[in-house]
């Protein structure tokens, strides 16, 4: 067994924390884990990509384009931008809540319609799962818990090789004590949003 998750989003969305949770859950299950993160320049509001790979025989921190088993998209345009990381059998999980780039916010560029972005995925991939992770996180108590919503959602994805309990335990070990309840609530909301 080998599994590759490509997590894409925007600096500040908690992509690195999500990758730590997934990686630790895989390690605790006894898998080999190889991950790759982008630090530095990319954090200043730019696009971020984190690769999480685990399985019996994994050592490479990078995966070939086209070979992702799951694309975990924290932001719609970043998900669409990174479709070439996967193939037509790849599962695509997409948060529908946008983060506007500065040139869009300032009115110099246009952000595409969300329907157009959904269409861009479904045109090439039949496995799209969408959710409003940021809105769910606000319902759970705070927008910053969107990454916990996303991790919960991953736990409910078809054939995901790690157990829901594994992910929840790993999440609990990675977040500060005082935000524990918030994150657990957000995780469950993400899980239920995909399961139902």
């Amino acid at each position, binding site marked *: 067994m080998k599994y590759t998750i490509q997590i894409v989003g*925007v600096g500040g969305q908690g992509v690195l924390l999500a*990758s730590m949770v997934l990686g630790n859950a895989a390690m605790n299950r006894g898998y080999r884990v190889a991950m790759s*993160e982008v630090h530095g320049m990319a954090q200043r509001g730019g696009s971020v990509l984190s690769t999480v790979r685990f399985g019996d025989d994994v050592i*490479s*921190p990078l995966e070939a384009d086209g070979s992702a088993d799951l694309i975990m998209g924290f932001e719609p345009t970043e998900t669409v931008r990174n479709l070439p990381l996967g193939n037509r059998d790849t599962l695509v999980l997409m948060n529908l809540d946008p983060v506007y780039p500065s040139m869009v916010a300032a*009115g110099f560029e246009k952000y595409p319609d969300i329907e157009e972005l959904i269409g861009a995925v479904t045109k090439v991939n039949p496995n799209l799962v969408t959710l409003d992770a940021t809105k769910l996180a606000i319902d759970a108590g705070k927008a910053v818990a969107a990454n916990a919503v996303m991790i919960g959602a991953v736990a409910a994805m078809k054939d995901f090789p790690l157990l829901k309990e594994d992910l929840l335990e790993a999440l609990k070990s990675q977040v500060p004590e005082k935000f524990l309840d918030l994150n657990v609530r957000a995780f469950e909301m993400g899980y239920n949003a995909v399961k139902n």
Partner: protein
Amino acid sequence: MSDLLAKEGKQLLLGNEAIVRGLFEAGADFASTYPGTPSSEIGNLLEKLASEAGMYFEFSTNEKVAMEVSAAAASSGLKSFVFMKHVGLNVAADPMMTLAYSGVTGGMLILSADDPSAHSSQNEQDNRYYSLLGLLPMVEPSTPAEAKDMVSAAYGISQATTLPVLFRTTTRVNHARGVVDLGPLGQPRPKGHFERDVVRFVNIPAHARVNRKRLLGLMEKAREISEESPLNFVDGEGDVGIITSGVSYTYVKEFVRGVSILKLGFTNPLPERKIAEFVRGKRCVVVVEELEPFLEDQVLRICAQNSIQVPVYGKRTGHLPYAWEFNPRTLEGISEIVQVQEFRESMPASQVKLPSRPPTLCAGCPHRGMYAATKKAVGSRDVVYCSDIGCYTLGVAPPFQTADFIICMGGGAGAAGGFAQATDQTPIAFIGDSTFFHAGVPALVNALFNDHKIIMVILDNRTTAMTGHQPNPGTGREFGGVQTEPIDIERLVRGIGVKYVEEVDPYDVKAATQAMKGALEHDGVAVIISKCPCPLELKKRRMLEAKRCEVDQSKCIQCYSCLRTIACPALIKRGEAVETDPTQCIGCGMCANVCPKGAIEVRR
């Protein structure tokens, strides 16, 4: 969360975390650096943990000084560790080249974090050549787990040869994460003692000639160690051989079948007998390495010297690229020679027009104010914006476009003097506070000395921001039980004789514009110190005041001056109206300062 001082267990560690753990296990005594990605996290971790581990650590003024302080520690019997990004080693190359002549009495590792694909760098130079140039043993780990273990192994090599060892990593080792088994912690010593040995440590020409021969002998000894080293091993069987090192090994190991791999971890001096023995009898050999054909050319030479007639494929034969980092798909270049796993066809890139998302200066970043002020003051004058290495490099993007020339740390300041002399244009050099101390001071002295009429703008945001907020001489030091006073930039600049010095608050864009106008009129070297702490740093320290800007729509005339001049990500255009984004706005008031109608208010 990772606990790098844990007694035992296994953890999912970043390569840089694994290296720090490796230092603790090896009992390293002394470390120094100048921050640079992809090595930066090592410094941030040592800032927090070194004293608890019983180790001394410092952020030095620049890489050259970092090399020198660690050289002294290793010449006093201690185990020292100096680390930097690849281009930092250029700065430190001067002491390093002669340090090898003297060697060390304790142990010393020089970590060079190379950055293939230049993710956060100005070039992708291959620092493995420094090991040949400087006659230094070199090791290259492939994974975080190996990086941890290789720290102790490399100290062993350093002690056996009495030479500093180059510890060469790349971004995909530093910023990879993997499972690491923790070993027992070592026992650092607080102090060593320097034993005088004039021939060895004083490289006057007569001694240098002696030391040069001694060094060549030590490198022969290093070659013998390399021949026997478990860091160089053969993995798998097949009549086709692959020779590889670093992260490239992980791609070959996982995605190529039916080959025999010679995995090299000790890569200078190369184990020549082992390589000759490996190649002999193979149908052909492929060398898989990123950047330059460092191994490949030496393999070709070893084959020639041993009269081995086996084809060697790689970069010289056009099968693998020189530029940019590898990934598993790069191996398709050798799929006619070896059995490479077939990769799935990618989904096509979408035809939907997506907005760009480049890294930008943060909301409320004080650099925005100084850039806006400069543009306003300069108007239509013919200027050359010399810039430097740091967050402020992002001024290259619209609407500022305040970077015309960037080469290296302090390079903009030095080049400004050249532009002043070689052209009739006005050079304006932007430089950060940390970069000013690193390499800007000599450039400013040069401008005074040679009467180059430059304007230097020191963007003093009270931290080394881009690499993750490290202290610098301008902030003083407050960690590891050491406290020092900040060095006052204004007094320093006045002290060396600059006549026009203005310190401004860049949030007051109007005042900053006046200061820049004055500098443009001044006949001589002018310095503007744009002083305002980085809001991200304030946020981290929980010192950011809760304020926000609000647009009074009844006063706003929709001229968009704020958007065009400050272009803060917290300013949002909804329809024709300008609003502020409460999740991003920090209430710095720069937009209010440039509003011609006073339509923006700062609320507490």
